[in-house]
């Protein structure tokens, strides 16, 4: 039951994100959507991911977005400045794809639950021990990927400084 509540909230908030002209409101609705997703992660027995989602996504990345929105003070989106022409054939292909995807989604939902058995929650590590298990897997099996990630962050940091700084 909670799943449908959080899911509906996430979808509604995401729709509001792209339905807003004001980027400030978009950012705020995205935060609401993240909160709903964090609730879903708790339902999926992943409390650590839920908390990380709030701390890093909502608490750090989105503050960065807000910061830029405030800094640029970029007001409403202008729609009429540049017209984008879409060829009719492109539209037809797009419409076809929409129909195909919707049909697929409907089919998947219609046949759902026939052969799906979740692994029971008993054998899984929960709460704090799930954090421990996460740490062990991350630093043993994924140690190389973890180290590469640090290089990625370093490069991103350098790139951000070089791009945004007026003169070096």
């Amino acid at each position: 039951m909670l799943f449908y509540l959080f899911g509906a909230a996430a979808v509604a908030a995401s729709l509001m994100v792209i339905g807003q002209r004001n980027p400030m409101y978009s950012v705020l609705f995205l935060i609401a959507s993240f909160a709903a997703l964090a609730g879903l992660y708790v339902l999926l027995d992943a409390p650590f991911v839920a908390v990380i989602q709030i701390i890093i996504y909502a608490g750090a990345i989105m503050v960065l977005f807000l910061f830029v929105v405030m800094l640029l003070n970029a007001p409403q989106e202008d729609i009429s400045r540049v017209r984008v022409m879409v060829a009719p054939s492109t539209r037809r292909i797009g419409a076809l794809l929409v129909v195909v995807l919707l049909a697929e989604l409907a089919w998947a939902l219609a046949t759902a639950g026939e052969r799906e058995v979740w692994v029971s929650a008993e054998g899984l590590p929960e709460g704090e021990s799930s954090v421990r298990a996460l740490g062990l897997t991350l630093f043993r099996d994924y140690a190389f990927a973890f180290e590469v990630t640090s290089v990625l962050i370093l490069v991103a940091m350098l790139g951000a400084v070089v791009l945004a700084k007026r003169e070096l």
Partner: protein
Amino acid sequence: MIPTFIAQIVLLLFVFHMLLIAAAAMVYAERKVAAMIQQRLGPYLVGPRGLMQPFADVIKLMFKEQLRPLGADRFLFMLAPVLSAVTAFAAFAVVPFGAETTLFGLLEEPMRLQVADINVGVLVIFAIASMGVYGIVLAGWSSNSKYSLLGALRSSSQMISYELSYGLALASVLLVGGSLSLTEIVDQQAGTWWGFLPRWLVVLQPLGFLIYMIAGIAETNRAPFDFPEAEQELVAGYHTEYSSMSFAMFFLAEYINMVTVSAVAVNLFLGGWHGPFLPEAFGWIWFLIKVSVLLFVYIWIRWTLPRYRYDQLMAFGWKVLLPLSVLNLIVTAAGVIYFAV
């Protein structure tokens, strides 16, 4: 005999009101201590020794007109103070403040003095605290005033910068404590080393405690890091345009955040409700004393140190505090492995 769930609800209401009273007491204490430091009398007219001053302040604020600047974003302008207050209250929900108790046989089964016992409690506090910045940022942006906007911009960059050191200080104390649950960490700190030195984690983590407190002061926007509301430069910063009860909510949030930071520091570093002389059932008295001492230090620092310059604040956060906390984390990790604590 009272069933547990009723006791839980009573506890919830009790904690809520205690936080309100703590904020009122802090307002009074701040003015009195400031007066003492500056050799003044401080409030003394309302009630005995001016004790009713905070209530007079609240009543005055209630009857003020609620103003909204022209061109302000109506919805966000109203939302921001509520968001600030809600996150401040919510963060305290996972803070334990006493041992398990039956209230002298009043309850059917022993209950923890904690609103919500979550086994990743420390992370939850950190998550909720990181949401607190939105109240300030939204207030600053929606006010449509340059002072508010500057305050909000300063606040967001300051809080992101100091959150790193704050998190790393928490991480190193969690390494020593070996748990993410505040209750478990507190229970490890019972007793003494060699009979006289309390087993508080501050003994193992002196640098971590220092970093935590400095970053905590920056996170709660208190002097000497109160740039979001630096009155000499920004009038009142992010809440320049606020009046009446919405201003009161920002005020309330600031003081409750201080209480929460101090309470978490007491739980993680200063042994929580453990202390000599008192039986376990009265541990909350020790907790109150320790929190009060830390809150006094907060006020003391505010009225002793002048405000930093903004570039000094950022340089200090990134070039001093962050390397120190990383170093502390590495040394702690090595120590934990070496001694296999």
